[in-house]
């Protein structure tokens, strides 16, 4: 068990290192001279480009630059924004809470909603309820996030005026974005729970319990649910990553000042240090959630530990 944990954590560290390298390389992969790239299209005298090149250490050999970047990152220094000259780390610190609360709320909704509707769907199989839930799930999986967001905005903000469209400073501002973001993951979980439970409900030991006179509710809650829920944990953790990616779009749709929106704006402005910082945070968060999921799965399913 300990060996498994160690192995997985080591693997994660390797992945994190790889992420850092890729993020670092981003500026250097851009066609053209990195120092010039940082200036964009503005005509700049050669002397100034050279000055910046030396100041940022771009004239040093690549491994040296990488070491410098890693060293800075470990200390919390991720460079400064090209447009505002503010430290990237402080921009991130301001943006992370908004994204974190969105991601957590969306995940909670997805898990709660997905499990609930999955159970409802499985227990009322082939009825209107089941079909209704299945259709909602299919729509959730097929619609791109920005489209679900706009649809929800149109229905609940424009027509019904129940919720505000943009902003993030209250719980009411969180509802529509969280539902938008969570719908996709929730749809996948609902389908998963439904099929898992239907499979379990068809087993002999369920028929035995039913014959013994156990109430339907107890069968659902105790016997069926326990086994049906295992894949939910792992799938949910994978979906968390998709959630982080989707947050980029949702934050743009609802104009929330999170890491995702920061990333999009930085890309449009070619502000590379900001892009690197945002990408780093999102990738790290995803890696971390994957690690937790794998560890949890290893805890539940002994076969994984020794496989």
């Amino acid at each position: 068990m300990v060996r498994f944990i160690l192995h997985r954590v080591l693997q994660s560290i390797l992945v994190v290192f790889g992420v850092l390298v890729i993020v670092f390389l981003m500026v250097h992969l851009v066609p053209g001279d990195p120092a010039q790239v940082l200036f964009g299209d503005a005509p700049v005298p050669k002397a100034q480009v050279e000055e910046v090149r030396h100041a940022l250490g771009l004239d040093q050999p690549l491994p040296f630059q990488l070491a410098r970047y890693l060293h800075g990152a470990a200390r919390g220094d991720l460079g400064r924004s090209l447009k505002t000259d503010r430290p990237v780390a402080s921009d991130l610190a301001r943006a992370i809470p908004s994204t974190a609360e969105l991601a957590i709320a969306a995940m909670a909704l997805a898990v709660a909603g997905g499990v609930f509707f999955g159970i409802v769907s499985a227990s009322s199989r082939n009825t209107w309820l089941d079909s209704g839930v299945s259709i909602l799930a299919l729509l959730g999986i097929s619609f791109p996030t920005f489209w679900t967001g706009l649809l929800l905005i149109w229905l609940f903000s424009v027509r019904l005026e129940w919720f505000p469209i943009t902003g993030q400073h209250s719980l009411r501002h969180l509802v529509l974005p969280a539902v938008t973001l969570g719908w996709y993951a929730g749809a996948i979980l609902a389908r998963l729970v439904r099929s898992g439970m239907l499979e379990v409900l068809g087993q002999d030991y369920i028929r035995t319990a039913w014959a013994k006179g156990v109430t339907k509710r107890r069968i659902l809650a105790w016997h069926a649910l326990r086994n049906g829920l295992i894949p939910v944990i792992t799938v949910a953790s994978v979906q968390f990553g998709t959630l982080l990616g989707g947050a980029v779009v949702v934050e743009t749709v609802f104009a929330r000042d999170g890491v995702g929106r920061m990333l999009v704006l930085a890309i449009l402005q070619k502000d590379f240090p900001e892009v690197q910082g945002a990408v780093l945070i999102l990738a790290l968060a995803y890696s971390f959630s994957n690690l937790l999921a794998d560890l949890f799965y290893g805890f539940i399913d002994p076969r994984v530990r020794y496989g």
Partner: protein
Amino acid sequence: MQRGRWSRVVPFLQRLSPAAKLSLVIVFCLSLPLIAPRWLAPYDPTAVAPSEIFQPPSARHWLGTDQFGRDILSRLIYGARNSLTLGLVSVSLSVLISVPLGLAAGYYRGPLDAVTMRVVDIVMAFPGILLALVVIAILGPGLTNAMIAVGIGEAPAYTRVVRGSTLVVREQSYIEAARAIGTRDYRIIKDYVFPNVIQALIVIATVGFAVAIVIGSSLGFLGLGAQPPAAEWGTMVSDGRNYLRTEWWISAFPGATIGMVVLAINVLGDALRDILDPRLR
């Protein structure tokens, strides 16, 4: 091996559910703009017409016009061309990258496999659209770059599938038999392993096509895909964002189209999976 597969096409079409048949029709309609957009589109998609701005759907403009007077239907048709091309090119790119890598890693195992899978893990540490955004950040916005971005972004997932399938196939006894009679590795992979890997590849390519369209239109929505004045579904949805209350058709039609197309591809993918290998479920 080839003859049996094609004679199953007609009965396959007959056995499809109504939903799957409808999806097939939708996908077919989607491919028409790829061949002959000018015949189908009533207007020039980029033609600005200040006298016709904000027209609701009417006889002259079936789906209305946007804030520049451009005909929505025509833009939708040309946008279909862009989206379809993006789907085809990016899936092809993913397949081109993943098949050699996956086959080699799965068949030969060893250090090649270890390194490949570590790289795959690292690249997959960037969730879906994030990777596409990274590539766009490096190469800049635009349709071609979006195709490359999505192609590279989805390649790791394909590699895992190809490798997984290869791992299963290489354990089969006919592989062992082939090796025993002295068949060279290259021929074994080409003639025995690869044809069996194709099934799994087709399934993920179908899903991948839908994913490509979703990511592509999301990039367009963010302003990072095909640049104006080119017609792109995601960009069209974004253009109409501020007019939801009044001129709803500017966002509604492109958005509904994206949803419908992705839905159709998903349904077809499910049907395809069932036909190809009912055991897989």
